[in-house]
């Protein structure tokens, strides 16, 4: 029995090893090993041929159409290099990447959120490119977003954009409720001001609410966005304090939970908020059922304008029962006298390694490809489509020639939000980060869903989170 199992283990191990070696030699014909060999036999290796694979989702509507163009442009720039783009659908791309990573054969570059880096770093599958990026590249990219691509001492990719997850209001309704939105855009607001404002935004007809002051998509796992965005503005820009203690045991956390309940109990938010999903809340925004919505992205201004055009055309193609809307970017209110810290999301081109350590040469080529995608014309086009700010000098320059439909006040508001963005925290060890994710998934999100549904109290939830945090990080590992 024992013998038999040992035999099967070794056969299996053999198969796996053989497979791995095979894979390294031929993974889409782009593997480091193969290229290396080609490079060596090629003699000087100065312009050795190499292929870089990139797994990319449709970041913006025009992004995927341009894949061919990008590949061609890259090849023009570096005639010895080939960029091979693997298209992937947006929602499923993580699962594909995860499978490839676990199989030991990821692409060279993948487009992911910066928060994903620590997950892959734990498996040692991301590539530290600190020693490979050139000073010119670093100088071109804004510092804040670049920080987000770091983890510990290493730099693992180049940022594509930095977007702020905030909220957004409908201009006519804001004005109707007497809210000075211009002032809010420029200097933010406190929770107390916000609470009054959304109360004023409610429109009732008898007992039924025709319009809510504020609707945030919180159905299912989206609820974690809501909480995360709010607590950042309550003195907890990250789950960990500067001295690496878990932050969500702070009394300010309880304040936020209480406020969340308060807004629902005031009637400013629907009591069914716990099952409003992203599609539904945007539908509510377009149909005039809410004054303010979240989470809000700058690109929503575009969606709002497009629906207005359809209403004008009056051909039945507009969203049913929709009214004309005018999207205004708004900051998230601050709690307990804490400074504003907007939730920044940085996505970018992260470098991966396979089972075998890539050669320095291949690594340099990967960085070239990542930089090509993250800067200049490609970045200008993508970020323009997304109404996202340009975060490279070269991108800013290239975007000057591109037309933009974004209103100036929203552009300015986005800049203001970016200036208050919570700083990156590359100092949080991957292991702590992983524990925090587990705590969030298994305790915070479920309890928070219950809080939104009115099935638990803020105090009870706070106790539960505290208890779980102490269990996970120890008495000394949490903020007191």
């Amino acid at each position, binding site marked *: 029995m024992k013998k038999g199992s040992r035999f099967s283990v070794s056969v299996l191990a053999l198969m796996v090893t053989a497979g791995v070696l095979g894979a390294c030699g031929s993974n889409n014909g782009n593997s480091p090993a193969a290229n290396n060999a080609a490079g060596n036999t090629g003699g000087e290796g100065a312009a050795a041929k190499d292929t870089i694979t990139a797994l990319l989702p449709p970041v913006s509507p025009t992004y995927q159409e341009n894949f061919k163009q990008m590949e061609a442009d890259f090849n023009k720039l570096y005639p010895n290099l080939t960029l091979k783009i693997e298209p992937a659908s947006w929602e499923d791309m993580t699962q594909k990447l*995860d499978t490839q990573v676990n199989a030991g054969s990821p692409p060279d570059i993948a487009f992911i959120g910066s928060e994903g880096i620590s997950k892959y770093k734990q498996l040692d599958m991301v590539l530290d490119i600190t020693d490979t990026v050139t000073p010119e590249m670093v100088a071109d990219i804004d510092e804040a977003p670049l920080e987000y691509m770091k983890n510990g001492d290493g730099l693992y990719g180049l940022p594509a954009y930095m977007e702020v997850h905030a909220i957004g209001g409908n201009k006519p309704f804001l004005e109707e409720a007497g809210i000075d939105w211009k002032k809010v855009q420029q200097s933010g607001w406190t929770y107390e001001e916000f609470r009054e404002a959304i109360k004023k935004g409610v429109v009732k007809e008898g007992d039924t609410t025709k319009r809510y002051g504020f609707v945030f998509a919180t*159905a299912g796992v989206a609820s974690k966005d809501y909480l995360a965005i709010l607590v950042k503005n309550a003195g907890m820009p990250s789950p960990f304090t500067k001295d690496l203690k878990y932050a969500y045991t702070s009394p300010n956390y309880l304040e936020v939970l209480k406020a969340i309940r308060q807004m629902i109990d005031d009637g400013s938010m*629907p009591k069914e908020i716990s*099952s409003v999903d992203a599609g*539904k809340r945007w539908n509510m925004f377009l149909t005039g059922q809410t004054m303010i919505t979240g989470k809000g992205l700058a690109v929503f201004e575009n969606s709002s304008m497009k629906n207005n055009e359809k209403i004008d055309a009056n051909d039945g193609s507009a969203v049913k029962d929709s009214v004309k809307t005018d999207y205004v970017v708004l900051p998230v209110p601050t709690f307990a006298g804490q400074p504003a810290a907007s939730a920044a999301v940085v996505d970018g081109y992260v470098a991966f390694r396979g089972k075998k350590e890539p050669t320095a040469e291949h690594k340099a080529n990967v960085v070239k490809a990542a930089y090509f995608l993250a800067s200049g014309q490609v970045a200008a086009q993508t970020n323009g489509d997304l109404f996202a700010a340009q975060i490279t000098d070269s991108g800013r320059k290239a975007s000057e020639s591109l037309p933009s439909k974004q209103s100036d006040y929203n552009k300015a508001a986005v800049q203001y939000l970016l200036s208050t963005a919570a700083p990156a925290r590359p100092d949080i060890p991957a292991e702590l980060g992983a524990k925090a994710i*587990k705590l969030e*998934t298994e305790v915070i999100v479920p309890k928070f*869903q*219950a809080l939104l549904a009115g099935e638990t109290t803020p105090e009870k939830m706070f106790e539960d989170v505290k208890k779980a945090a102490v269990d996970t990080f120890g008495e000394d590992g949490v903020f007191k």
Partner: protein
Amino acid sequence: MARTASSNRNRLNRGDGAWGYAFIAVALVVYTLFTAYPVVSAFLISFQEYKPLGSTYIGLDNYTEIFKSSLFWKAIGNTVVYTILTVPVALILSFAVAVMIMPLRKWMQTTFKAVYYLPAVASGVALSVVWLWIFDPMQGGILNQLIGAFGIDSQNWLGASSTSMFSLVLMSWLSSHGTSIIIYVAALLGIDDSYYEAADIDGASFLQKMWHIVVPCLKPTTLFLLVTGVIGSFQVFQNAYLMTGGGPDHATTMVGLLIFDTAFKYFEFGEAAAQSLVLALMIGFMAFLQFKFLGKDVEY
């Protein structure tokens, strides 16, 4: 006499073994490569801390981790509840529909079968959008309008732990019976008319025929649908993932979802493999019970 019969049978069955293996050869090869190999890998991984660059064997740690976790047992509990509420209802519904289709004219049979089969061809995206609309918690929601007509207050279907499990169950009741209906209809057609003729001569009523002919003849089919139904229900993941994310407060966390989270959210592949093997063991035990009580294939 008996001896000649049995030796006759032996003579007739000679060489059957070889044919038996020949008929399953292709299936067996495909199975070994694409099913058994991954399963064996998963089994090995369940004793490891899995890392693509080199795993370490950690003995039974992954298993002890599971047995300590209260969430795993809660998820098992939820899954059992979900299975008990959905699988038998699905069987009864599709059986009833199949029986009701039988006396109709041919073109009507075709139409109805096509109609019930249709939802299976619909894209998952269309389905999920529609179900979100049905469960819309506001007054505009289809289900809320429906119960509103009976004077019942609007419910927060997917958002409250009291109704979220029921909502998922309802969704399962009203969708995707096409497969089992088609299989039941095929099985009903396979019953030889001579049975009914014999029963008619005895003056059997509809219910008597149902109980003495249809139910026993459909036993193998029912067993098939039951076993595959339970397996499917234990692995259910998509609906909980898309509709509730397991919430609120783990009211709809199923084992399938938990395994997915462990594997892809926490990247603890070893523990996920261990979880699935524990799950498989439970399903296997239940399948064994089902075979034991229903498994006697009908002999003629």
